[in-house]
């Protein structure tokens, strides 16, 4: 599913025009992005949490040529799946696949 499909379904469920719903979805996503940009974390119960992890610079290698490269320090958002979602995703797979 992509963003526009999500917006369409959301509009139907909450009974709002698609245009307004698209704008609401943008607010949700922008608010989450801005929190991470500020270095804040996000915690949504039953869904999961996002934290920003900081990585120091290190000397890496180009795996193809073996050349050394300096990797600059960086920050990356990290998502930890919440317990409810984690269990339900796995349960659904067991039921469907009979694993």
């Amino acid at each position, binding site marked *: 599913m992509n963003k526009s499909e999500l917006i369409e379904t959301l509009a139907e469920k909450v009974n709002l025009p698609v245009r307004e719903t698209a*704008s609401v979805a943008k607010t949700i996503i922008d608010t989450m992005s801005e929190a991470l940009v500020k270095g804040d974390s996000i915690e949504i119960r039953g869904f999961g949490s996002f934290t920003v992890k900081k990585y120091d610079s290190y000397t890496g290698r180009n795996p193809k040529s073996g050349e050394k490269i300096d990797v600059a320090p960086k*920050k990356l958002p990290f998502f930890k799946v919440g317990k409810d979602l984690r269990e339900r995703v796995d349960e659904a797979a067991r039921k469907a696949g009979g694993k």
Partner: protein
Amino acid sequence: MTLTKANLIQAVYKKHPGLTKTQAAESVETFIQLVKESLIKGEDLLLSGFGKFNVKDKKPRRGRNPQTGDELILDARRVVTFKPSGILRSKINNGK
């Protein structure tokens, strides 16, 4: 600071004067619900500009209880992973 669902509802309510507080709450709740349902169905979810939630099937593997050192078989399982979009990554690293 931690952003919670209540903060998201507040943000939606503030930015969309046409919505009642209840509609703002319902929109945020349903948004999260739809994301979850997609992943539970085993469908990946792409939120362009933010990132992609992937559903991955892991094979069973042999593991160890780190406390006792006993070997055990870890079952096959299905997990959710998140890959941030390039846009989000650069925003986070450039501060805007």
